């Protein structure tokens, strides 16, 4: 499986349409994609030009109804943020629009979640959909400037977006100019306050809140920070309306969502599904491999679960809430049958510990401590009692950082201990499981299933 940080993964996305295998069709007739944002991706297999984009979706709507119209439509569509937090987009837009000073729109295309590829897939195939969304959102909240933030590690993506912006300038499409930026690519650098801080000349690290960006953001102006997929949905809602948007999905989760499915699946990639599609159906779309029994839901900030316990649940915030999970940015990682869940969790934890902003003590010292505990357990070489040490540390760390980085990391670790409980106790008795042992004998690569990017130019936050 190729991964996006390599920068060459144009071939690795899953495409809508005909990817459902006969086997999964037999078992799960409901497993299917719903191409909206991903319309025609498979046919073109590259970034849509402005001309193709306009032929596909029609021209950028000039708002006959004026400013309030789009806000009403987004509200009626019940669009929620696709960056992971799932906050109602209209509420956020109104909060920015209600302030007196001219606003700023920031599109968040950082996607620092290593198990997610959907934002870069979207920007690589349909950049104009995102740019439309920026333009429309700017009109709706009264913004005079707009920015799109991309990771510095994906210059090919920047090139593609810059080309699209230039096309639009030639065609005179947007009322405002859209500046394209490349930011340092640390895990916490995609937090909205990090973007604002960087755009204001600081480091791409989260800042203490309040003030939130909607109150005081870029250049001290009220700032709307939205994920690029969210903005792409705004572009479709502006064209086709709220009712069209709600035609698919459930009451609480409307429209479609981009998902990234990787791990123990035969067709890893990005799939656009109706909100509310069952977790098991999304896994089947990507061809869940036999023997895979556990899944990481929501990414590195997510939680581990037995597939059997969650496969029937809708892949939405409300659907997953009862089992303590959240779809995050639409990420599913199926643990391959031959992998050790504890070893994977330990690697993620080590990565997350290295990815903090090194600002808050409980995170700076707590996450490496938990990573050590988990590492000892995974290796079957416990010093003392790592299980109870971790349980105590979980409680101490949670809620004590400026951002939610430590909370998310702790939640992931706690869910691993619970889901792989039998393994955890066996490992604690120095009986590491077969997978972990094999990994030890044949070098780490054997069990290394989840992508753990090399830390981005350590210390470079500007």
């Amino acid at each position, binding site marked *: 499986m190729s991964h996006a940080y390599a920068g060459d993964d144009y071939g690795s996305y899953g495409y809508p349409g005909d990817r459902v295998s006969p086997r999964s069709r037999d078992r799960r007739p409901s497993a299917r994609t719903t191409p909206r944002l991903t319309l025609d991706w498979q046919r073109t297999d590259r970034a849509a030009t402005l001309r193709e984009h306009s032929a596909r979706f029609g021209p950028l709507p000039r708002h006959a109804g004026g400013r309030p119209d789009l806000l009403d439509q987004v509200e009626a569509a019940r669009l929620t*943020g696709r*960056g*992971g*937090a799932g*906050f109602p987009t209209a*509420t*956020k837009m109104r*909060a920015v629009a*209600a302030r007196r000073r001219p606003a700023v729109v920031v599109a*968040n295309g*950082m*996607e*620092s*979640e290593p198990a*997610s590829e959907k934002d870069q897939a979207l920007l690589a195939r349909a950049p104009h959909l995102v740019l439309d969304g920026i333009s429309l959102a700017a009109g709706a909240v009264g913004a005079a400037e707009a920015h799109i933030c991309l990771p510095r590690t994906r210059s090919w993506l920047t090139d593609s977006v810059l080309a699209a912006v230039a096309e639009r300038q030639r065609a005179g499409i947007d009322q405002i100019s859209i500046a394209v930026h490349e930011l340092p690519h640390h895990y916490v650098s*995609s*937090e*909205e306050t990090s973007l604002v801080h960087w755009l204001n000349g600081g480091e791409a690290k*989260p*800042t*203490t809140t*309040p003030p*939130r*960006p*909607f109150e005081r953001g870029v250049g001290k102006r009220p700032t709307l*920070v*939205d*994920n690029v997929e969210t903005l792409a949905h705004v572009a479709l809602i502006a064209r086709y309306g709220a009712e069209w948007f709600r035609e698919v999905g459930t009451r609480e989760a409307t429209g479609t969502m981009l998902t990234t499915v990787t791990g123990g699946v035969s067709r890893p990639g990005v799939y656009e599904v109706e909100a509310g599609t069952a977790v098991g159906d999304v896994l089947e779309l990507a061809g869940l491999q036999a023997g895979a029994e556990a899944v990481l839901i929501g*990414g590195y*900030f997510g939680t581990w679960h037995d597939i059997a316990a969650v496969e029937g649940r809708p892949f939405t915030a409300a659907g997953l809430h009862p089992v303590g999970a959240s779809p*995050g*940015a639409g990420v599913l990682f199926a643990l391959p049958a031959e992998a050790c869940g504890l070893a994977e969790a330990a690697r993620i934890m080590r990565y997350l510990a290295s990815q903090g902003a090194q*600002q*808050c*003590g*409980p*995170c*700076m*010292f*707590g996450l490496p*401590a938990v990573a050590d505990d988990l590492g000892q357990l995974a290796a079957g070489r416990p010093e003392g009692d790592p299980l109870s040490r971790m349980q105590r*540390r979980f409680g*101490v760390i949670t809620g*004590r*950082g*400026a*951002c*939610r*980085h430590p909370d998310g990391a702790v939640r992931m670790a706690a869910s691993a201990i619970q889901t792989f409980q039998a393994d955890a106790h066996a490992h604690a008795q120095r009986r590491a499981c077969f997978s972990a042992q094999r990994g030890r004998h044949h070098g780490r690569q054997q069990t290394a299933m989840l992508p753990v990017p090399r830390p981005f130019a350590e210390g470079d936050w500007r």
Partner: protein
Amino acid sequence: MTMTLQIDPIACTGHGLCADLLPELIELDEWGYPILADSVPPDLLAHARRAVSACPALALRLVRVQHQLGPRHQASARPGR
């Protein structure tokens, strides 16, 4: 009016003076960073103020408990990625 202690976790560098001065409400974690009690009872207010002014990093604050944050304050209260 209920008062509570707040810490700026970025500013705090774990000197630990606050826990020395106000052990009733502040304990230190294993790395030396303060864990605060939920609220400050009136009889400890003077001690709390002393702890606040003693913080070398100016990271500790004494604030009124805010009830009911409006929806605007909750907007994007969680990190988006």
